[in-house]
């Protein structure tokens, strides 16, 4: 084997090693840090482990918003078929309204209440998060041109 071939072989081996390490890091990172999107019906129908981070999306149920002391807020997210109670402590986005589509991030607690650490509502009155549109369509409560 001449020197040039040897160099090429070493280079190829190094490349494979780097690629393998990278693949391990990426796969591990994805395994640890992907969050599933769930609708209230998903939560009602499948057992979702308390404490596992998920994204929950739907409409803020009419008449459900209640402010607690300080920055605490309680409300319910519905897709028309099922409803999940949500606790949140923090500042709500400007366009958080009853009947609006929202996506929240957090986890269920032991009693089945969703403890959110983030609430996202888009800044546009006409905007509906696409995940929420899909879940409303699945639950049969989607009306074209808004809700």
């Amino acid at each position, binding site marked *: 084997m001449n020197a040039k071939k040897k*160099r090429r072989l070493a280079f190829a081996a190094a490349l494979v090693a*780097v690629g393998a390490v*990278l693949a391990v*890091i*990426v796969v*591990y*990172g*994805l395994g*640890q*840090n*992907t*969050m*599933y*999107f769930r609708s209230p019906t998903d939560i009602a129908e499948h057992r979702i482990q308390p404490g596992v981070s998920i*994204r929950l999306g739907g409409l803020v149920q009419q008449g459900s918003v209640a*402010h607690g002391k*300080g*920055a605490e807020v309680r409300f319910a997210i519905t897709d028309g078929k099922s409803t999940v109670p949500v606790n949140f*402590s*923090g*500042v*709500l986005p*400007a*366009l*958080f309204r009853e009947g609006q589509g929202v996506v929240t991030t957090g986890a269920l607690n032991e009693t089945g209440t969703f403890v959110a650490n983030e609430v996202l509502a888009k*800044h*546009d*009155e*006409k905007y509906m*998060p*696409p*995940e929420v549109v*899909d879940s409303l369509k699945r639950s049969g409560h989607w009306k074209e041109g808004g809700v």
Partner: protein
Amino acid sequence: MTGELGQIAVCFALALSLVMSGAGLWGARADQAASRSIANGAAMGMLVFTALAFGVLTYAFIVSDFSVALVSSHSHTTKPLIYKISGVWGNHEGSMLLWVLVLAIYAALVAALQRGGDRLTSAALGVQGLMAAAFFLFLLFTSNPFARLDPMPFEGNGLTPLLQDIGLALHPPMLYAGYVGLSASFSYAAAALMVGEEGWVRAARPFMLMAWIALTAGIALGSWWAYYELGWGGFWFWDPVENASLMPWLIATALLHSALATERSGAFRTWTLLLAIGGFSMSLIGTFLVRSGLTSSVHAFASDPTRGFFIMVLIALAIGGALALFAWRAPTLKGGAAFEPVSRETTLLLNNVFLIASCACVFVGTLYPLVLEAFNGTKISVGPPYYMLTFSPIFFALLLLVPLGPKLGWKRGDLKAAWRSLYPALGLAAVAAIAVLALITPRGLTAALAFAVAGWLIGASILDVRSRKGARASAFAAALAHAGLGVTLLGVTGATAWRSEALTVMAPGEIITVGPYRLRFDGVTEVKGPNYVADQARIALMDGDRVKTMLRPEQRFYTAEGQSVADTAIRTTGLRDLYLALGDNRGNGRYAIRVYVSPLAPLIWLGALVMALGGMLSLWGRVRVGARASASETVAAE
């Protein structure tokens, strides 16, 4: 009438782009000088007509000509002038017109500068013409900005208020200058594969630099905007759209470094070609991600599936074509020059390995949710922790290596001597780490480590400048860019590790203390802006019992658009930001208020500015050297 004029101009530009591609590619043959001049002329003509079309659309926005559908759906008579103008690219169709305008500007630059000889230039113009033609077709058939509306409405729908902001007025043109700037390197690389690769790197380098500078500035502007406009106090959210701009930047950075080695020592010849193709491919993929509506964000203007499909075909043709050309021609190219394991080339190789690896992490994190959803309908999101776990350590490792490169010689370096010359930088790193550990509670090891690396980068850059008195501009440029990285790192560390925040509901007269600041909430009043009404809070920054200054965060409601946006109040000392955002009304005059104190946050963008300045210095050095070289050529010819 104006709309039709714009449409005709786009058609002429399309015709000229086809002429340019045909004449350019044919002119790559040695004996076709006439064809080459046609290509050059077509490049200039294409710029004129594209600029005319863009000017016509801008005029329609300025005078609020609502008979143009795009104007009526994205503008409003009450909008301030600057946002009427920025509204031109605040929508899908207009932003694609801006895209082709930038493409035409780069084509005209390639034609005007004639870098790398007339055959290489001609072939590059040919490739640039093919891409321009594809985008003009895209514009005309799926995204016509000049479509008419009949009957003409009396008033427009307005522009998303989030886009009515100076940061976002400037961010898209800057980012596009970067994205599309990479097309010039791409065209030169493809041209080099056609007519022989000698000299293409030197020819394309100013374009790589321009693209990199614009990308750096564009990303920084976008991040700055997200910081002050979104009201969350964050500066980077690992949003798919941000990632779409970060990936071309990572590849462009790798390209700059690989091209340096190719130019100076002849190493990585084929790799540099591949990177030039890869850089623009990332730009195209980024455009696809943003414009196809696959990701939901302020950037996703429209979710018209035909557009996504068209862009996908375009990407497949551009990337596939270039890679096929590469596979066909690369084996015929001269191999890269050899170098010792301890040399500048090795550090540049590692630089590329780390940059490509970090880009791969971002790529997978961005596209995995899309692929998974297409595959089995599962909706997932990949959050910031993923990037902290994958991207950050790889990029950190890259930063550790940065100071070593410039200290090692080409072909063969002296590691011991390089190491010794870096002792002062090492000292600065140690001082920075110890200072953080000693002075700041709670003690954070990560923060100390990050400060050490920043000290290491900045220290080494200072050493570089000191040791090369009278050296070429490029050495200073590199030192400046590397120091900029260190400055940004300081900012990122301060703003994440030492940020304090308070999320509270306050009644008028109430006082809270956040970090070193005492704040008194004085209530909310309604104020009127040019095209919005706002709830404006008055929050007094207290110094004892005295009011030092009044801060006024707002919640604006844009009447025309029916949308509501926060306007934050930020008071900066240059080294620390006090950041206030007004939240929702909780009744009885009580409001939710967000307060963030972000130490060193301004350094994030200052660092990016320093990096961009480094790029500009390098570009200026090129121009000067180029001018001198051509002057001496003229002298020699005489």
